[in-house]
């Protein structure tokens, strides 16, 4: 894994007939980690912290990174079905699912369809639900913002922004471009949410923890409060001086908030 000492292995699995690339590493109880709409570039810090005490299982959504787009997996619901099949294949025991931003949307879609394989959800800067009137923009338009506007909306710490955006641009622009394309496939319309999903999240009987930045300008004010209210058993932790990706802006604080939720 780039820039860390964690040994991560790559497995090319076949799940429900679909080819799926899965990254695995660390030791301990299994946790499923679902990446955000920018791919896995920002997840390495999270993996590094988690892998000391947990076994990370991190599938790559078809179309992201160096994987091929799939005609049969092109919606978040398709992804949720695929990952639920992955859980069945991986372990008899249920596990925690961690989802970051777009990955959190996938996680809640999984949970509403899966009563047996998920113990709890831990959601970092989650997307996937929508509130308010048609004119209320819940989530900034990722595809209509200039790069400076994006950085401003996503990050509290501009140095972190450089790591995930500009630095990635320099290192591997084709992968960056492919990730943007994949995020459009899954998130273009409806825009990073599933209409009516609250009807089902309100029926969930597992705990849902939401960790979000106190300076998240990517979503509207009050978004995470309403998000947390959409689940019967939920908690919400705000990380100070952090934007949309708390594990990037404040890794240690985020890990400390996250760790008790996994034990």
């Amino acid at each position, binding site marked *: 894994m780039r820039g860390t000492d964690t040994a991560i292995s790559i497995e090319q699995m076949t799940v429900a007939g679909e080819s799926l690339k899965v990254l695995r590493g660390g030791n301990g109880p299994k946790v499923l980690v679902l990446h955000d709409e920018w791919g896995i570039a920002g997840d390495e810090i999270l993996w590094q912290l988690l892998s000391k005490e947990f076994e990370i299982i991190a599938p790559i959504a078809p179309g992201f990174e160096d994987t091929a*787009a799939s005609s049969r997996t092109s919606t978040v619901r398709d992804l949720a079905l695929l990952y639920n099949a992955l859980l069945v294949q991986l372990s008899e025991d249920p596990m925690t699912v961690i989802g970051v931003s777009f990955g959190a949307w996938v996680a809640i879609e999984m949970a509403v369809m899966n009563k047996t394989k998920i113990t709890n959800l831990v959601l970092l800067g989650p997307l996937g639900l929508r509130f308010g009137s048609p004119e209320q923009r819940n989530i900034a338009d990722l*595809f*209509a*913002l*200039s790069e400076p506007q994006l950085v401003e909306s996503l990050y509290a710490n501009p140095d972190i922004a450089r790591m995930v955006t500009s630095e990635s*641009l320099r290192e591997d*622009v*084709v992968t*960056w*471009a*492919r990730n*943007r*394309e994949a*995020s*459009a*496939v899954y998130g*273009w*319309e409806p825009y990073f949410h599933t209409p009516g999903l609250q009807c089902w999240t309100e029926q969930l009987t597992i705990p849902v923890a939401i960790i979000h930045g106190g300076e998240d300008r990517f979503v509207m004010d009050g978004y995470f409060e309403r998000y947390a209210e959409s689940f019967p058993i939920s908690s919400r932790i705000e990380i100070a001086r952090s934007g949309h990706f708390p594990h990037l802006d404040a890794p240690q604080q985020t890990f400390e908030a996250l760790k008790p939720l996994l034990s």
Partner: protein
Amino acid sequence: MQPWYFSECGYEDLPDASEYESVRVTIPNSYCDPHVVADLYDRYIEEWIAAEAAGFGLMANEHHQTGVNLNPSVSIVSALLARATTTARILVLGHQLAYRRDPIRVAEEMAVVDVLSRGRLEVGFVRGVPSDVAPANAQPQGTLKRLWEAHDLILRAWTSHDGPFNWESEHYHYRQVNIWPRPFQSPHPPIWMTTSSTYNAPEIARYRYVCATFLSGYSLAGKVFHAYREAAHEAGWDPAPDRLAYAGMGFVAETDEEARAGAERMMWFSRNTRTAPQFSRVPGYMTTDEYATMVQGGSRREGQGQRDGGVQGLIDNGILFCGAPDTVVQQVEQHYERTGGYGHLIILGQYGKSQHAETMRSIELFGKEVLPKLGGLGLQFAD
């Protein structure tokens, strides 16, 4: 050679580019005075009518949420041209099929215009430009697939006369398709498509449709035409020049100097407006490699740099035909020779800050002193 007159119908009184983020998609319509637009519509229709008198066919297009083009519906503008003119053929180029959620509506509207014009309509199906993705909120992935799927459905709707048929494809779902009226021309109006790349030309050739390429200069136009002709030959048919079309900018005046001054005014949009990069580089619209190249500041389109020069550069690259009548005849002949030839010449004759009087004069000079001398072109390929 069939000449066509094309007007972008822009809003000439745009503010300084420093006042807005992007002339496409986000420029507020507070800058748009509907009284000015009403006068502009009158003006542009008058120019189209003059173009008919000069011997041109008439071409219209559409774009959205921009001051560069005031036609958000090519169906509407073609319908009014059908009633405002009597003899000219009318070319819709085109419908942005990949962005339209209801292709049956396109089939219906074009059937109406074909009937209104008593069979003078030609219909172009295009994918759409990147900056029209956001106004339509169209999924940028899979645009070519949707274009052809919508095309198949429209063709079926135009040619089906025995009551409703069923259509449930990947993107379009109808169970009772039965359009009224049906097209005036039988089996349907001639079909055009556009491309700026050699890899789309063979598919257009497979259907024997007219293949148009816009502002692509000598080099790229020649390659596109070659790819089309080669694909046609491989498919076992021999295309005539009327299967190919070139669209360039055109401005004629009494002298070369006057024409160049007019062309400078035409270029105002190109030099004085800007489009925010996020609306021109849309993920999924192009190949991953092309997108990555654009993100790094490059151009995805071969020959894009050809458009960056001044008036002389545009003339040198075969994008602008500009000068006194004989100069323009010579430029078109040279373009025809160097690209291998084509049967349709589309002239973008009004753009930017072109003034009405000089545009009318340019159209008149085209009609009297340029088009008659191009009669020998378009009958056979130059090569």
